[in-house]
């Protein structure tokens, strides 16, 4: 599903990804780990087509995420580490997502309810005015409602309380079939029951790749 071949990405003289090669297949839940600056986020952003690599390529179902970004992103859900300060109201954000990615608005509400987030009471509020936890719940609800084949989470539980984390993992369990689930995490114990593959990165390289 995702094929990363000899991927190198430099920022000035700093090598963020150093000739990385790996593949992710259907029904794999991967924990992507490593110290700060190991290259995890750069790898994710390369998969999303945000970076132009210095060398190598990323293919998703045979498609290049830079050249065919619309086709590729139809099948990817992404939740960033920190919710961005989007000034749109929740209603407008849902409108943006439902029109651009053909996501069912009711399904977003459904997953928000499951995450104990009352969307209806906050529809006219700006997204950035919500609390950190509410923002994260909203982004998680959107990611699940999108029904993508590839779900990428960059430290998704950083702002969540224990109850919300449980809800999140329960929902993920229900939605992981036939998908690639890619977690960037520093807390393996949290996702241990969910993942079946662990990748460690360091200094821009994959140093360990284990099936568990």
């Amino acid at each position: 599903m995702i094929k990363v071949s000899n991927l190198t990405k430099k920022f000035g003289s700093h090598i963020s990804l150093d000739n990385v090669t790996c593949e992710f297949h259907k029904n794999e839940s991967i924990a992507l780990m490593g110290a700060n600056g190991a290259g995890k986020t750069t790898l994710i952003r390369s998969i999303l087509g945000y970076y132009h690599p210095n060398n190598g390529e990323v293919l998703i179902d045979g498609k290049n995420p830079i050249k065919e970004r619309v086709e590729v992103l139809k099948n990817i859900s992404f939740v960033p580490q920190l919710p961005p300060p989007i000034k749109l109201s929740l209603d407008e954000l849902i409108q943006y997502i439902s029109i651009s990615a053909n996501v069912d608005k009711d399904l977003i509400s459904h997953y928000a309810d499951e995450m104990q987030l009352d969307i209806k009471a906050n529809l006219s509020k700006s997204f950035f005015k919500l609390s950190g936890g509410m923002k994260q719940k909203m982004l998680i609800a959107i990611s699940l409602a999108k029904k993508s084949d590839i779900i990428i989470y960059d430290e998704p539980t950083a702002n969540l309380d224990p109850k919300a984390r449980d809800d999140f993992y329960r929902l993920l369990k229900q939605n992981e079939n036939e998908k690639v689930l890619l977690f960037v995490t520093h807390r393996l114990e949290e996702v241990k029951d969910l993942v079946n593959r662990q990748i460690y990165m360091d200094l821009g390289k994959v140093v360990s790749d284990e099936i568990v």
Partner: protein
Amino acid sequence: MKNLFLIAYLDLKESLRAKWFVVYSLVFGGLIALFFIAGVTESQVMGFSGLSRLLLMYIQVTIVILPIFILITTVRSISGDRDNHILEYMLSFPISLRQYYWGKIIGRFITVYIPVIFAMIIAVLYGAFKGAQIPWSIFFLYTGLLFALSSAFLGIAFFISSFVKSSEIALGLAFFVWIFLLAFIDIALISLMMQQRFDEQLIIFIAMANPMEIFRVAAISLFDPELTVMGPVAFYILDSMSQSVFVALSIGYPLTLGLLFAYLGFKIFEKKDLV
């Protein structure tokens, strides 16, 4: 196309709620109100009177403040979204970069153009209500000129926004562009160049290349071309070119310039790392 209009619509809605938009609208609306309160329409200076004088004064002030307003409020649109990771999230949905970028431009254009044109319409309506004669030729010329000037500076702002790394640098650059173009208005640097006996063709070329200068000359071109307020370059241009050709040029050139800069900005946006 639906995504293009979606981005434009959402950007417009977001801008209309922003504090800068309130200030921006108040400045242009306030200018018109101030002119009426000050009795500009009743006074007569150097042959200008009534609504013509009011519109001329409005356009003279607009030429200075409109570009800097557009630059400052727009130059952070892409770079700011990149800075605070909004791009990272919003572009994780299946929207082409072309739709995102041009959608933003359309939304922002409507935001910056509406208050300036609306203030002028209010002036005309109020003038008509007070029984003043409406100078339609000037009104339509200024509508076109403001459209072209807004396009030019919006294009420049998006161009800067597409390549700068942080919004602080974007702001600094925007300010520099404004000062640079303002300095080339013929009452300032150009006059100095003429005093120093620079080549005539060079001076005219520099003046004509500057959208603010073109705008300024075009704004007074419908009046007597021998007026001393016009400055030497304006006098030269209007003396060597027919009025209709110059009016067409003064609208067509800034519009083209804006589109060119916006297009260059898009190419950079497309080729650069997005976050």
